[in-house]
């Protein structure tokens, strides 16, 4: 080879450099960091003004995994930006809860724009992340109106909204409309059904599997039938091993997407009739899922993060979520005070009688589903033999 002449000197330079760097360069692994700082609990009233000033001084907020049409986050983020003049850096808009937590871990020492300040994750991700020291406790001024069952007593995580599991159906492509989970196993749905995430990482997908258990002889304490159900669906060829998103439904690539009702409704709105679509809540029951907000223990902009929380948990913030078809966590309080606009009251889906799994049940189901998905269902795109 004619570049032979220079290979040796270059290699030598390489080696010298390498040795120099090994001797004293940056550590090969992440440097262990300080313990998360505990924020003092904010008493309501005046500290709010101070918080706004401190947040504006930081000037930036980094969010992660907040799609604009998920619970109307698009409008909420814009309103926050307009109200306080703080720039919002949005990471990984279609990330899953698992990826959000990974991002916190991966950016422990990074105060740059790749490190998330706040996360919005599935309920079961809250306690586990708090236990790993990844979250910073903070109690918003409206703390007392959040139901006790939906928050951590020390303020590490707190419920934000909930909805029920449903099917978003593209009726132009689907030959019939499924009424219940069992319908999804029928041959007419061959290659047409998809989850909205990876069941090993995405809360939405995990809850979908859990929800299907209820319709297949399982219960809130037994999620195994859910895995079996998806195994059958995969074997029948009905399950498409893709992450189902709104775009794929719009294109007709996926006819039935298993997702939260609010996502399906928001998506259907966006289609504007092309394609025709509908939302189906499975006949066997309403399975509710809740998400929680939390501030990263390593947040580069802690004050902007706290202000974001204050904003989301104010009446204004909660109503933004309602516009996206989500049931905000302070809904009961908002209703009693009569602050919800009439048109929203009419629009928001009725989920009376929905079952909410307890934290223990969620943890057990999550462990089972994330651990056994590969073994039992094994739906992964494999290379052709």
């Amino acid at each position, binding site marked *: 080879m004619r570049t032979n002449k220079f290979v040796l000197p270059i290699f030598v330079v390489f080696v010298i*450099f390498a040795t120099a*760097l090994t001797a004293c360069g940056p550590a090969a692994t992440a440097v262990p960091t300080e313990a998360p700082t505990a924020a003092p609990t904010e008493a309501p009233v005046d500290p709010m003004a101070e918080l706004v000033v401190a947040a504006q001084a930081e000037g930036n907020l980094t969010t992660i995994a907040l799609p604009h049409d998920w619970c109307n986050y698009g409008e909420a983020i814009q309103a926050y930006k307009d109200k306080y003049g703080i720039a919002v850096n949005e990471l990984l808009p279609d990330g899953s809860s698992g990826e959000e*937590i990974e*991002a916190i871990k991966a950016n422990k020492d990074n105060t740059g724009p790749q490190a998330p300040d706040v996360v919005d994750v599935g309920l079961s991700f809250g306690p586990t992340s708090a236990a790993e020291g990844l979250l910073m406790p903070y109690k918003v001024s409206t703390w007392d109106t959040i139901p006790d069952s939906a928050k951590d007593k020390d303020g590490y995580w707190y419920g934000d909204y909930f909805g029920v599991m449903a099917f978003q159906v593209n009726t132009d492509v689907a030959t019939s409309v499924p009424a219940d989970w069992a319908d999804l196993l029928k041959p007419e749905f061959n*290659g047409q059904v998809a989850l909205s995430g990876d069941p090993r990482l995405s809360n939405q997908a995990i809850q979908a599997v859990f929800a299907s258990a209820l319709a297949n002889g399982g219960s809130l304490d037994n999620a195994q039938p859910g895995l079996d159900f998806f195994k059958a669906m995969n074997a029948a060829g009905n399950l498409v091993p*893709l992450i189902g998103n709104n775009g794929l439904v719009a294109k007709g690539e996926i006819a039935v997407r298993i997702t939260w009702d609010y996502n399906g409704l928001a998506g259907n709105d966006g289609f504007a009739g092309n394609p025709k679509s509908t939302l189906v809540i499975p006949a066997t029951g309403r399975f509710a899922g809740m998400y929680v907000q939390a501030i990263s223990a390593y947040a580069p902009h802690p004050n902007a993060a706290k202000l974001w929380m204050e904003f989301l948990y104010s009446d204004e913030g909660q109503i933004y979520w309602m516009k996206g078809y989500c049931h905000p966590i302070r809904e009961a309080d908002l209703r009693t005070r009569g602050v919800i606009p009439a048109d929203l009251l009419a629009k928001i889906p009725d989920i009376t009688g929905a079952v909410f799994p307890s934290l223990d049940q969620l943890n057990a189901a999550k462990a089972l589903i994330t651990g056994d998905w590969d073994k039992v269902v094994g739906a992964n*795109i494999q*290379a*052709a033999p």
Partner: protein
Amino acid sequence: MDNKILTGHLAKAPRSSWKAWLGVVPFFIFAILFLLLPSVRLFIGSFTDNSGKFTLENIIQLFTQKTILDAYKVSIQISAVTALAGGIFGFMLAYSVTVGGLPKPLRSALITFSGVASNFAGVPLAFAFVATLGRTGFITAILKNVFHLNIYQSGFTLYGFIGLCLTYMYFQFPLMVLVMAPALDGLKKEWKEAALNLGANNLQYWLKVAMPVLLPSILGSMILLFGNSFGAYATAYALTGGQLPIVTILIGAQIRGDVLHNPGLGYSLAMGMVIIMAVSLGFYSWLQGWTERWLK
């Protein structure tokens, strides 16, 4: 790719003083900071374990951990298939506008379009192929309605191996065209006339004269295609949402969060990839040099 870069001139200029090297210092500083340092970092990292000590464990795990082996297997399969198919298709296309004698305007159109297509990778390409071969895609519909052939019924999916290969082909065979056209141009007409005069027929000319000359170039270009496909990330990610177990996507997941639970393993994964790419490039330039000798 132009071999003249790789072969260069054999300059016989006198050794310049060290002052002359100052002129290229900015370039070298840049290269060190943003090309060399990151590469060296990955290199060192692959030999380091979690406590900072030297270890060969990461390299060993490359060959023993199932997820990684599977990822390499799929990556290599896709790259080999698209290199071969893209190579053959590209060669025939290049042939048709050079030796095949198609009119000159068609040739320049082809070269321009090949330049565009070899650039049109990533997210837009994935969308284009969904619109073409997706479940409700253009070609899928034609095949179903005109030819009564429901490809999705027979198990085809754009989001699997074959689908990804077909998508990759879009930027693979244009690359082959761009590389082979100059090589095919170099085939001297005199050789063909001489062969014919000596009593050989067309086939014999091709088998005994043209192909032996071109073969190193063809081989080298296919290897270049292999490397090109191996390093592709955005197209695969946009098409399969990160579900396809190939090496680049695995590295991407590792960067975002330590999915392998071992940073050193991530580095050695990256190093393994760099080595494969370096070997491909090395073979390519060597084989191109070989062909160059004949086609000068």
